[in-house]
């Protein structure tokens, strides 16, 4: 009989105990998975703003809690543009507005029409809006499709009606799901005259981008340059907090799951004391007894992890439909979340089952055989 067969047989002999252990693992993994997907998706939604505009790097206000609170004035944008290595700088005002209960987080981008091509925007239908128009708007093609709008239609934002003069594409989900308005129009609506949220910078060919970034950072201490997703926390502390909370929750899930595994495995070892005595009496080594208990725990944990991943997926789909969350994030399932969940499940099994397994292995055969 293969060792694996014995492990499976032992697990199914004690269905209730195995199910309880597996459930503890499943709940922990469900939490880790759902939180991980939520965090990653929120991060992707926020960070995707960086990908809009085909810039070499982005400049924002340093240390704000949310990127939408970042504010740069005309002077700062002009100062960035004055660096000889800078080819172009596009100031963009980003705002979020609740259109209706199904779209609580609709993004508006304020940008001048003469900066559209620098920003990587392609007008695929209609024409760009006029620079000073107060009632013209362009919709990203995803937004136009979702709202069923085309050129010439009316689009209402906060009781103000706009005419859709064009449909655009940025090649990026975030941008294509938003609307674009003339910068002064959005600045007036947001009461931020002369301010933009972010400055998207393109450098001249051959420029050492990191050296330029360091120069800008050093000479403008109130600003922060961001080039990669991992640096996004410099201009959005919320995401750092969310990431930290995610790590904390994963650690907590690991600890709680391990305690659950340890509890049920200890009870199982106690109940099986005589069985372990018999196995030692017929020549099983301590190491093999330890391996049996550990392997059973790992196998149960893997089953629990599978169930937890399925439950986590369902949980994300349910959360996605909660009214307060609709439209705020699109679930994204990164490959490493599955690896992390699996690793945590196996970690739980190892940490939780180690002490009971060692106890089982160190039982004196004769004392174990006398156990009732």
């Amino acid at each position: 009989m293969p060792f694996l067969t014995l492990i499976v047989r032992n697990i199914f002999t004690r269905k209730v105990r195995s199910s309880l252990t597996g459930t503890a693992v499943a709940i922990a993994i469900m939490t880790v998975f759902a939180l991980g997907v939520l965090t990653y998706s929120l991060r992707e939604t926020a960070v995707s703003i960086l990908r809009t505009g085909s810039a070499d790097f982005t400049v924002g206000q340093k240390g704000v809690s949310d990127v939408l609170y970042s504010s740069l004035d005309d002077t700062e944008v002009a100062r960035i543009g004055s660096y000889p290595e800078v080819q172009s700088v596009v100031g963009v005002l980003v705002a979020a507005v609740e259109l209706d209960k199904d779209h609580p987080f609709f993004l508006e981008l304020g940008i001048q029409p003469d900066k559209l091509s620098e920003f990587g925007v392609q007008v695929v239908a209609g024409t760009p809006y006029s620079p000073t128009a107060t009632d013209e708007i362009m919709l990203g093609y995803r937004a136009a499709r979702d709202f069923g709008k085309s050129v010439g239609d009316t689009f209402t934002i906060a009781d103000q009606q706009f005419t859709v003069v064009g449909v655009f594409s940025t090649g990026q989900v975030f941008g294509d799901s938003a609307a674009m308005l003339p910068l002064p129009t959005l600045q007036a609506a947001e009461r931020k005259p002369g301010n933009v949220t972010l400055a998207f910078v393109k450098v001249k060919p051959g420029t050492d981008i990191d050296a330029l970034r360091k120069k800008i950072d050093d000479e403008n201490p109130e600003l922060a340059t961001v080039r990669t997703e991992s640096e996004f926390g410099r201009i959005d502390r919320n995401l750092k907090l969310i990431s930290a909370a995610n790590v904390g929750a994963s650690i907590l899930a690991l600890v709680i799951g391990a305690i659950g595994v340890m509890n049920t495995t200890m009870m199982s070892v106690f109940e099986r004391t005589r069985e372990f005595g018999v196995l030692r009496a017929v020549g099983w080594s301590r190491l093999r007894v330890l391996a049996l208990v550990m392997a059973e725990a790992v196998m149960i944990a893997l089953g629990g992890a599978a169930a937890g991943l399925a439950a986590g997926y369902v949980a994300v789909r349910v959360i996605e439909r909660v009214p307060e969350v609709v439209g705020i994030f699109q679930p994204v399932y990164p490959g490493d979340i599955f690896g992390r969940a699996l690793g945590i499940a196996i970690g739980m099994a190892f940490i939780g089952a180690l002490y009971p397994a060692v106890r089982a292995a160190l039982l004196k055969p004769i004392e174990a055989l006398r156990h009732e």
Partner: protein
Amino acid sequence: MIDVVKLFDAGLIRALDGVTMAVGRGEFLAITGPSGCGKSTLLHLIAALDVPTSGKVIVNGYDLVYTGNDRYRRSEVGVIFQFHNLLPHLNALENIEVAMFSNGMGHKQQRERARELLAAVDLSAKETTPPPRLAGGERQRLAIARALANRPSIILADEPTGNLDSASTDRVLTLFRRIQEERHVTIVLVTHDVHVAADADRMIRMRDGRIVEDALGSPQ
């Protein structure tokens, strides 16, 4: 065994009080005596399930000073317990196979050997039956088959007929004789039943942790 002493409960119980004895290869030895005389304790020491408080236990070159003698238990001895100690969630065949882990045999070989042993104890028809559904005598025969799994040179049986009727007892004793003769195995059998003990080649009587009589059994 050389001057073996075994104490329990911090010395309050003197289970073995300076026992010295030798067992010849291929011998069928019965150890008898009243309850609490130390016969089971003696067996447990030979099986390396426990260790002496003082003295030496040497079997086939193994000095049994600690209970980590897994290799010894795996290759030299087969133990039969009074209450069988079979694993109830495994069937008859698997109860034998589980004793053969780490003996170097492949799974197929282990299965073939387990089947051979079941046939040797007349339990071929009960291959897939778990122990709770076997009769008392059948369970004891299965326990004997398990004890033979790794071709031990010594079989240690602790009250193997204690819970059996006379017919099953006779069957088990006949089996022991056959094993001794066919496989040249040394058998050490602990029993409180002098009739069972008389069936052996040699009988040792114990009382209060000491050997009080060491005699040849009924001639076979």
